[in-house]
């Protein structure tokens, strides 16, 4: 059946079986492979995407369920060569090791800061509690989200300061 949705601001559509999972639609049909398949059992959060701005597990959604809705994947975070505050935070604070959980962690962090721009450490840890880092790099993931929160606050205090760092811009 026909399905259409907005992925990272771009209208996308496909003709698929109803049983196709959202993560498979993104990866196989749209060739957007930044959304990972980890456990495939709703446990790990590697497949996290934002559905109308809120993080959900795309291995546990049918693509047809999100007909007409807005999806954001990790590919939608950067604006051209400019990293989003969360991406810059993960870069600055070494928020990743193997990188497999990173898309999900960054999307959860992005949604958290939209809802709660100044989260406590406990609030950050609770927000990422549905996402597993097999490298156990949680300390730096928390620091990365805190870094992004500070960057966002500074950007708002002194507009038009840039919110993120340029790719490769050391």
């Amino acid at each position: 059946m026909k399905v259409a949705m907005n992925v990272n601001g771009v209208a996308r559509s496909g003709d698929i079986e109803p049983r196709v999972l959202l993560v498979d639609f993104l990866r196989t049909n749209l060739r957007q492979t930044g959304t990972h398949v980890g456990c495939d059992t709703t446990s790990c959060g590697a497949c996290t995407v934002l559905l109308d701005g809120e993080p959900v597990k795309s291995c546990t959604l049918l693509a047809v369920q999100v007909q007409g809705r807005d999806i954001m994947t990790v590919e939608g975070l950067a604006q051209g060569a400019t990293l989003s505050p969360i991406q810059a935070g993960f870069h600055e604070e070494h928020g990743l090791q193997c990188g497999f959980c990173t898309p999900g962690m960054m999307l959860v962090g992005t949604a958290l800061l939209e809802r709660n721009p100044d989260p406590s450490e406990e609030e950050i840890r609770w927000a990422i509690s549905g996402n597993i880092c097999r490298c156990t790099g949680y300390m730096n993931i928390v620091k990365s989200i805190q870094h992004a929160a500070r960057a966002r606050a500074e950007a708002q205090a002194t507009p038009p300061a840039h919110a993120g760092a340029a790719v490769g811009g050391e």
Partner: protein
Amino acid sequence: MFPAAFDYRSPASLEEALGLLTEHGDSAKVMAGGQSLIPLLKLRFAQPGLVIDIGRLPGLSGVTRNGSLTIGALTRHVDIERSKDLGGAWTIFPEAAHWIADPLVRNQGTIGGSICHADPAGDWGSVMLALEADLVVRSAQGERVIHASDFFQGPFTTTLRSDEILTEIRVGAPSKRAGGAYNKLERKVGDFATVAVAVQVELDGDKVSRAGIGLTSVGSKNIKAVAAEKALAGREPTDAVIAEAARLAAGAAEPKADVRGSAEFKKDVVRVFVQRGLKTALARAREARA
């Protein structure tokens, strides 16, 4: 993993959904948020011919507090967790919601879907039993109300007929000062409960006028600890009365030993959680100005 093939419909109205259910009966499965059904489809424990996606039906979501309480079946766990209308006598709702699965699942899963899934490890079933909630269901023939204690029959089995859809949860206004608590032990976020206990009490002066206790993950369905409730009703909740109720509730639990612990351990967690939950719920009821 991907599910076996099925047909999919996303009806625009409840009437259309009920018509599809009447037509397809047992071969159709209703899906709300899909957070229980999709894992079952992927594991192929469920292979329905038709999935009826009611997730976007209008008018079945939201919390209405008007003396009594009404919660639409499509209300997501996260909306209950963050609801401004569910403090005071209804604190048990956000407290239980906070423990369901993980934050991402709570963004998509619904209270009605969870109740109808009737997993013995489900949290809402125990809350429904403790609150003596009414479950309002609709079919093409009309509406009927199923009392929570008549709803849960066994693992993943309820008295909901195959042509019915749960539309809302109703809880009567507490007659006196009321408070509740939900305590849950889990190995990690997202794991099934080792044990969880829902407690709701109403006070009349110094005495308990009504107590409701629901047990999660310690039997083939959510268990209403009736003997423990009776041991509290009409009594002043002294430490001895609370301890006796906790002992009776542990006696009502029928846990099985598994990787999460022995049966003896789980029964003792029930005892401790009933005691702890009652003390919290009583403190909240004493603060309440209902």
